[in-house]
C-alpha cells in the first residue's frame, strides 16, 4: 500500500487546495460576523448552479463561469443574510447559526424548485491524467489547483492591500476600535457576506467541475469545510488554508490505514486531536 | 495566608513578578498600589481563576496553589470581582442563594429524589439571603435580574455573595469603588463588624484611602508586580517609596 503514498499525497494536496476556497469564505464570515454560518452548504450549491447556467446554458468557458458563480452566490449570500440572519445576530451567535441551518433548507429547495433533482454536468472537456513517474495528475486538477492558488493569492492581496480588505481585518481584529476609527461595520459585514459566500460559491462550482451537481452538492463537502476551519482556527484565514490542507491530505492518506468507508472520520479525528492541544485551533483567532 | 513568589505574565508582559506577602488570620489586610501593579492578577492567582507560573499560595497551612476555583472556595477562601460579574439570568435572590454553602440540592440525585433535604437547606439559606439583602439594602430588588441592577447595587451584591458563603477568608476586589460615600462607609463598617464578630479574615484591594485608613491593618503595597512594602497605614502613608509609586513622582 505504501507505494501509493506519493499519489495519495498529491491527491490530498489537490483536494486540500479546493477545500481551502470555501473554507476561507466560511472563516472570513466567522471572523467578521462572529457566527458559524451553516448556510455555506446551500451557497456552494447556488454557486455550482450559477456556474452551470453560465457554462451550459450560455456556453461560457470555465473561468467566466466561475466569476458568475462568485457573483450569484455572493448576491444570494448578501440578500439572505440581510433578510434572514442579520436581525437575529443580536440574539447571539448560536441562535444565528441555527437560523442559518433553516436558511440552508430554504435555499436548497428553491434550487430544487427551479432545477429539479436531476444530476447535471458542466460542458467542459475531460482529459486523462498525465503521469510523472509513479504519480498521476490530471491537467484539469492542475488547472483547479492553479485557480485555487490564484484565488487564494487574490484574497490575500485584497485583505492585505485594499482599503476594504484592511477594514475587514480591522473589524475582525477589534470591532470596537474599528468603529471608533470610522469603519462602517455594517458595510464591512455586507461586503464579507457577499465575498465570503461568493468564495463558497466558487468552491461549489470547482467541486462540481469534477463531478455532477444536484441540489445536494453543497452538503457533500460541508463537513470537511467545518473540520478545516476548526482545525485551522475559526476566523483565521491562513488557518483556513492550513486546515484545508490537513483535512484534504489527511482524508486521502487515510486510505493507508483506514477503511475508505470511514474517510469522513478523518476530519473528526483531526478536529479532536488538534483541539485537545489547542482549543482555538492551530492558528488561534488571528484574522490574518 | 502566605503568598510566595507568585509570577504570571500575559502575552509577554509580566503582570506579577515575585509577589510575596502574608495575611495573618483575623486581620483586614489591604492590598494597594497603582493600576497595573498586579493586584487583581494576584487575586486571580490566589483564587484559582488563572494558575500562577511559579510561586505558591498556602492557606491555613495547606498549599492551595493550582487548585481549581471551586476547590479553593471549599477551603474557605472566597472572592469578589472588581467589575461585578452578575449572572444575567439569575435574580438577586437566586444569586445570593447560589452562594450559600453546603446545599445538598446541588447534587443531582439529591435534587431529584430527596428534595426535602434540599428544601430544608434552601429555607435556611433563604433566611440568610433575606438577611444579607436587607443588610445591604438590596431587599427591594431581590426579585430583579442581576443585569438590571445599578453599578452600586452590583457592588453590594458582590459583597453579599461573599457573605452568603460563610467563608474563613474573603478576598474583596474594590468593595467600595463606585458606591456613594455613605454606603461605602456602611460597607466598611460591615466588614469591620464581620472581622470582629465572626473572626473573618479579609484581604481587600481598594483605592479609597479613607476606607483603607479606617479599617485596614496591615497594608501591603504593590507596584509593578512586586510587593513594595507591608506595614500599618501610617507607616505606608509616610513612606517616600509608596508616595512615589502611588501618587506618582513629581517632576
Amino acid at each position, binding site marked *: 500500500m505504501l507505494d501509493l503514498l506519493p499519489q495519495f499525497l498529491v491527491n490530498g494536496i489537490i483536494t486540500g487546495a479546493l477545500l481551502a476556497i470555501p473554507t476561507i469564505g466560511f472563516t472570513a464570515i466567522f471572523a467578521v460576523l462572529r457566527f458559524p454560518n451553516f448556510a455555506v452548504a446551500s451557497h456552494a450549491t447556488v454557486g455550482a448552479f450559477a456556474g452551470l447556467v453560465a457554462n451550459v446554458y450560455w456556453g461560457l468557458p470555465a473561468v467566466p463561469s466561475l466569476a458568475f458563480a462568485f457573483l450569484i452566490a455572493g448576491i444570494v449570500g448578501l440578500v439572505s443574510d440581510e433578510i434572514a440572519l442579520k436581525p437575529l445576530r443580536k440574539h447571539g451567535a448560536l441562535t444565528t447559526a441555527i437560523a442559518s441551518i433553516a436558511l440552508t433548507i430554504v435555499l436548497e429547495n428553491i434550487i430544487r424548485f427551479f432545477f429539479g433533482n436531476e444530476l447535471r454536468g458542466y460542458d467542459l472537456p475531460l482529459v486523462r491524467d498525465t503521469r510523472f513517474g509513479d504519480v498521476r495528475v490530471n491537467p484539469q486538477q492542475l488547472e483547479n489547483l492553479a485557480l485555487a492558488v490564484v484565488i487564494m493569492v487574490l484574497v490575500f492581496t485584497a485583505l492585505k492591500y485594499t*482599503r476594504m480588505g*484592511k*477594514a475587514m*481585518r*480591522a473589524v475582525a*481584529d*477589534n470591532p*470596537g*476600535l*474599528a*468603529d*471608533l*476609527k*470610522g*469603519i*462602517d461595520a455594517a458595510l464591512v459585514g455586507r461586503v464579507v457576506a457577499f465575498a465570503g459566500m461568493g468564495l463558497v460559491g466558487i468552491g461549489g462550482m470547482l467541486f462540481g467541475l469534477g463531478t455532477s451537481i444536484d441540489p445536494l452538492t453543497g452538503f457533500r463537502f460541508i463537513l470537511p469545510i467545518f473540520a478545516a476551519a476548526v482545525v485551522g482556527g475559526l476566523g483565521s484565514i491562513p488557518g483556513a488554508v492550513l486546515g484545508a490542507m490537513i483535512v484534504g491530505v489527511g482524508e486521502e492518506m487515510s486510505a493507508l490505514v483506514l477503511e475508505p468507508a470511514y474517510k469522513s472520520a478523518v476530519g473528526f479525528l483531526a478536529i479532536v486531536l488538534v483541539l485537545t492541544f489547542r482549543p482555538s485551533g492551530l492558528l488561534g483567532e*488571528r*484574522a*490574518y | 495566608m502566605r503568598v510566595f513568589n507568585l509570577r504570571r505574565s500575559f*502575552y*509577554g*508582559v509580566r*503582570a506579577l513578578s515575585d509577589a510575596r506577602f502574608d495575611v495573618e488570620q483575623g486581620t483586614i489586610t489591604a492590598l494597594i498600589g*497603582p*493600576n*497595573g501593579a498586579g493586584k487583581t492578577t494576584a487575586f486571580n492567582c490566589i483564587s484559582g481563576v488563572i494558575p500562577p507560573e511559579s510561586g505558591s499560595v498556602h492557606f491555613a497551612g495547606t498549599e492551595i496553589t493550582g487548585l481549581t476555583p471551586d476547590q479553593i472556595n471549599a477551603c474557605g477562601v472566597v472572592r469578589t470581582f472588581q467589575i461585578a460579574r452578575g449572572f444575567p439570568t439569575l435574580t438577586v435572590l437566586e444569586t445570593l442563594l447560589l452562594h450559600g454553602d453546603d446545599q445538598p440540592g446541588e447534587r443531582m440525585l439529591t435534587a431529584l429524589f430527596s428534595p426535602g433535604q434540599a428544601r430544608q437547606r434552601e429555607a435556611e439559606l433563604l433566611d440568610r439571603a433575606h438577611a444579607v439583602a436587607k443588610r445591604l439594602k438590596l431587599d427591594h430588588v431581590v426579585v430583579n435580574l442581576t*443585569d*438590571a*441592577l*445599578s*453599578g452600586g447595587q452590583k*457592588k453590594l451584591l458582590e459583597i453579599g455573595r461573599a457573605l452568603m458563603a460563610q467563608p474563613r477568608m474573603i478576598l474583596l476586589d*474594590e468593595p467600595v*469603588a*463606585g*458606591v*456613594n*460615600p455613605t454606603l461605602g462607609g456602611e460597607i466598611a463598617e460591615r466588614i469591620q463588624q464581620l472581622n470582629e464578630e465572626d473572626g473573618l479574615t479579609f484581604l481587600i484591594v481598594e*483605592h*479609597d*484611602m*479613607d*476606607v*483603607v*485608613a479606617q479599617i485596614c491593618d496591615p497594608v501591603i503595597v504593590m507596584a*509593578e508586580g512586586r510587593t513594595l512594602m507591608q506595614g500599618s*497605614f501610617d507607616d505606608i*502613608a509616610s513612606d517616600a517609596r509608596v*508616595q512615589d509609586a*502611588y*501618587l*506618582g*513622582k*513629581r*517632576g
Partner: protein
Amino acid sequence: MSLLNAENVVAGYTSADTILKGVSVHADGGEIVAILGPNGAGKSTLLKAIAGQLVAREGSIRLKDKPLTGLKPREVAKRGVAYVPQEANVFPNMSIHENLEIGGYLAPREIRGRISEIYGRFPMLAEKRKEAARTLSGGQRQVLAVAIALMVAPQLMLLDEPSAGLSPVATQELFETIRSIRDAGVAVVLVEQNALDALDLAERAYILTAGRNHIGGRASELAADKDVRRAFLGG
C-alpha cells in the same frame, strides 16, 4: 467658549444605572486637562459619553458650538475627536503600519503623509512597522494607540488611563509624547490614576467623585491641595 464644552452630562450603561450624574468639563486647544477621581467615579464613562460610545441622557456635549450629543462614535471621530480607550486600543493582529492606516481610515488621502510624520516622531514605530501590534510591549502599545489617534489630526484627544500598567520610565516617555501633542495645539483630556503625575502633566484638572464634579482648577494648585491628597491617600 472652549473647544470642548460638556455641561451637566448624565449617562449610564443601562437605564437603571446612572454613573454620571451631572458632570461638566471643558477643554481648549493646547491644554491638557486631567480627569481624576477614585475608581467608579465615572471618569472613563465621561470619555465614552464624549466619544459617542454612550448616549448622554441629559446635558450637552459640544465641540466648537456643534453638538456631539447623539452622534455615533464614527461621526464624532469625523468631527476631529480621537478617543484612545484604556484597553483593546490597537489591532493586535495587524502590523504597526496597518494599524496606522486604519487610524487614518477617515482621511484616506492624507494617510501617507501622516504616517511618515508619525514615523519621524516615533522612530520605534518605524522600526517595527511590519510587526504585528500584539508583539509590542505595554508602553510601545500605548504609543501606538496614541499614534493611531493622531492619524486623523484631531482637535481633541481623549486618553483613558494611558499609563495603566506602564513602568515609570515608559510613563514618562508617554507623557512626553502627550506634551508634544498638546504643543501642536491639540486639546488633550486624559483620565489618570497616577494622580500627582497627571497633575504635573496637566494644565487643569477635574476631580470627580460618585459621578459628580468634586473639585476643579489649575493643576498646580490642586496638587498642593489637602483635599486632593485626601482623595488619593486618605491623609
